[in-house]
């Protein structure tokens, strides 16, 4: 217990330096489960706590992180016509992806956790774990070239206005990660919509455009890879190839239906996720694996996931029946091949704080997200994706859904009294 004693000795005083104490407490309880014992109620407590719950969610999205970092590089090189196989030039793709992803991750956590720590110190309570998940989600739902300053603004907005203003973890009405994204979506729309933003490192996704490599690639990675014996290196002379389009499947579908999509992307490519998009939302099997972990451990609600799928499918079928635009005529099951439906379903809609909190309410809540989200995706002329707005919209309505479910319970009890 030498380490424990050392740590206890350096613990800052709570009164003299509350911020340092909070910081210490946060990291200390992370390293050591506290020695507190049950008082006054049950004498044993379940092994699960909020840290374990939150970290399991973060672990469930690690596959998306791995795939996302490679895919940033893959999309970049696809635009240059280099390394067409997904694992070709893996070291370059990974290096490129990490150079893009790590700053996003770092800024998100510095800003978000910094604000969390500051509020915790100010209010004199322990650091709550909510931002572990929000902080892990935010990088996955950003385009790879997001300007870091704006990302910082967005995270600060989401944490302060979205969460701390309502009282912190467990009290927020809107999903914090989505709030960060929607902030960028409305404040800096050009960085997060359109065809240009989903592939990193290009001045313009047009044929002949020059690639932009910073000194870190030419001055650090190239010599490093050379020393390690790789022959393939970052080529600062490369240009975007002829006929390249950075359009996402959704915008292609919006323009010309499913045929237009399959001209550019194959079905398996879309399913496995080697397509442009937000960093972590492209690979369906890996997201579903994460969803499987969440369902198996009982952390996320299968009710929300299932009913959201059904809601989206029903709306897509109805749109198929309507069949007025090319996008509406995309077969309903192919709607799930495109866009970020599964990511929203597995990680966003299931946030227990902002979702409906009754089991019956969860089914209604999930269904309506699927239903409304598909409407937004297909009928919205400006932006062919709907889950972010649909989830935020239903976040607002979740308490109302719960209210009616609870009222039904109250009425059942009243009826019993009258019977």
């Amino acid at each position, binding site marked *: 217990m030498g380490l424990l004693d050392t740590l206890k000795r350096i613990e800052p005083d709570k009164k003299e330096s509350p911020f340092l104490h909070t910081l210490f407490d946060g990291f200390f309880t992370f390293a050591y489960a506290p020695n507190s014992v049950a008082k006054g109620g049950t004498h044993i407590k379940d092994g699960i706590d909020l840290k374990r719950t939150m970290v399991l969610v973060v672990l469930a999205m690690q596959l998306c992180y791995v795939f996302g970092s490679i895919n940033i590089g893959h999309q970049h090189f696809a635009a240059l016509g280099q390394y067409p196989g997904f694992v070709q030039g893996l070291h370059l793709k990974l290096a490129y992806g990490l150079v893009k992803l790590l700053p996003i991750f770092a800024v998100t956590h510095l800003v978000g956790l910094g604000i969390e720590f500051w509020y915790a110190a100010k209010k004199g309570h322990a650091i709550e774990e909510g931002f572990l998940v929000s902080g892990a989600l935010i990088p996955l739902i950003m385009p790879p070239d997001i300007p870091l300053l704006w990302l910082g603004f967005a995270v600060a907005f989401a944490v302060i206005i979205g969460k701390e203003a309502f009282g912190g973890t467990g009290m927020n009405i809107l999903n914090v990660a989505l709030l960060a994204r929607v902030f960028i979506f409305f404040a800096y729309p050009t960085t997060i919509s359109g065809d240009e933003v989903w592939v990193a490192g290009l001045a313009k996704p047009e044929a002949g455009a020059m690639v932009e490599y910073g000194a870190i690639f030419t001055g650090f990675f190239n010599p490093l890879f050379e020393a390690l014996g790789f022959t393939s290196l970052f080529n600062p002379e490369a240009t975007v190839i002829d006929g390249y389009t950075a359009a996402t499947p959704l915008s292609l579908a919006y323009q010309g239906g499913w045929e237009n999509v399959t001209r550019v992307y194959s079905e398996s490519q879309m399913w496995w996720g080697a397509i442009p998009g937000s960093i972590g939302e492209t690979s369906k099997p890996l997201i579903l694996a994460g969803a499987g972990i969440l369902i198996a451990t*009982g952390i996320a609600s299968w009710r929300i996931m299932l009913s959201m799928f059904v809601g989206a499918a029903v709306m897509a079928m109805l749109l198929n029946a309507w069949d007025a635009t090319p996008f509406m005529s995309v077969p309903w099951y192919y709607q799930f091949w495109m866009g970020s439906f599964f990511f929203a379903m597995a990680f966003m809609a299931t946030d227990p704080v902002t979702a409906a909190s009754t089991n019956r309410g969860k089914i209604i809540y999930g269904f309506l997200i699927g239903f409304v989200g598909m409407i937004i995706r297909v009928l919205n002329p400006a932006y062919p994706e709907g889950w972010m707005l649909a989830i935020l919209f239903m976040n607002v309505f979740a308490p109302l859904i719960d209210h009616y479910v609870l009222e039904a319970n109250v009425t059942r009890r009243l009826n019993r*009294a009258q019977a």
Partner: protein
Amino acid sequence: MKNNTLYTFLVALFMFSSNSVFAASSASGSSILNLALWAIAILIIFFLIIQVSDNLIRIEAKDAGIDEKNKAGLSLFPSLSGLFSPKMPDYVGGAPVHILKAGHDIVLEGAAEKTIRSGAATTYAVLPQNFIGISPIPKVTVAVGDEVKAGDVVCFDKKRPDVKYVAPVSGEVIAVNRGAKRSIKEIVILADKEINYKSITPVDLATASREELVNFLLENGAWAMIRQRPFGIVPDAADVPKDVFISTFDSAPLAPDLNLVVEGKGAAFQKGLDVLGKLTTGQVHLGLNAASDSAPSSVFTNATGVKKNWFHGKHPAGNVGIQIHHISPIAGNDKVWTLGVQEVITIGKLFTEGKFDASRIVALTGAETASPAYVNTYQGANIGALIGEINENVRLVSGDVLSGKEKTKEEFMDFYDDQITTIKEGNEYEMFGWLAPIDARPSVSQTFLSGLADITYEANTNTHGEKRAFVVTGQYEKVLPMDIYPQHLMKAIIVNDFERMEGLGINELVEEDVALCEFACTSKQPLQQILREGLEVMREQA
């Protein structure tokens, strides 16, 4: 009902037609997927037609009154609950069983061996604060040094002087200990070697009026054996309960086996049931366990004058509150009574033997108990004397680990308890204990691999995490087999909205019912404490 069916049908038809439009428009591809979708759609429409007609048959049957008992009798389909319900053991004899899906059994080390020793306690105590709502300083009618017989009155509440609290054993009153704010904490009696009973002439059950019977029970200390829902208090003498409920099994961790407890006391138990039957305008309900390997004691299964209700489920299926909810839920201003099996026997013995016999068979349990077994003693026994030597850093609990009270060796068992549990204190830091614990720990969540194995846990009192705001939803519902939303009820209590509390069913609950929810809580919220605060608010309002 018909409207609902029709509505469902129309919606389904609409969905199907939209589906077929899509299928027709893309059938040119004639892929296997399309064909499969067509096939599924056709199957669904057939199923829907059959389902609708089946529902119509059932509705007709219900209207005609020929389908009263067997709800699925005229249906083409076997009822879902019939298909998926576990097979009931033979001893149930085909009687209807309440199957409770929610719940969780916590399997701990230190179950009591099925042998009964005689208890060696020399001191016993009446603890007035065991009775919820009693004034902090009740009138003590004995003084230190007085000799009392078992059944002699030792104290009563000045607000309700008719309810008498009596000595469980005979002997000398050696102390009246006071707790916080000079409240009476315990009235301690040094027991005689041979217990002398106050001689009691029981009223004749066949001829006595209800009033005479009530006065007899009040006078002889038997009234305190009864607890009333809502609130879990000793009932008012003027109240007539809607029903009386007795659970004949305890599903709490390491709980005593009541079949063993009741052995050889069938006559007294039956007499107690008869007495209770006289006191209620409704019925006396027994809750029996249909989830055990062996049949319940014949004392329970052969009891007469009562309604027997079978329950199959994990803890808290044995809690009488859960059973009430499924038999005849408390509604409006209903008041019902609940009793433990041993309390019924004490009431019965007033009539069969003419004495106040507060003998109790207590289970000594827990991983830290030297030899876990049953012990024959009396109500309010000294805990240290029963449990013997224990190691340091061990917690003593009167009751089970979920809803029992922490005690020291010098203190006494609570009035309604029939179990003492020992459990190791968990006051140690553990490196990354929240992520990768060294030892297996019980959990309702499915996040521990050890949950897949059949493990007997050696739990400790560590909280395994810090208190947080309510974050996770739906986890209480998983372990509370009632039509109640515990988290919303708790929030209503916290904001002191008593209309909402009542509406969401606070009157159906006492602490032991939400104890498993408190155990399971990710945010480590003190649900039992919150619930009691709410119940106190409700009691003041009533």
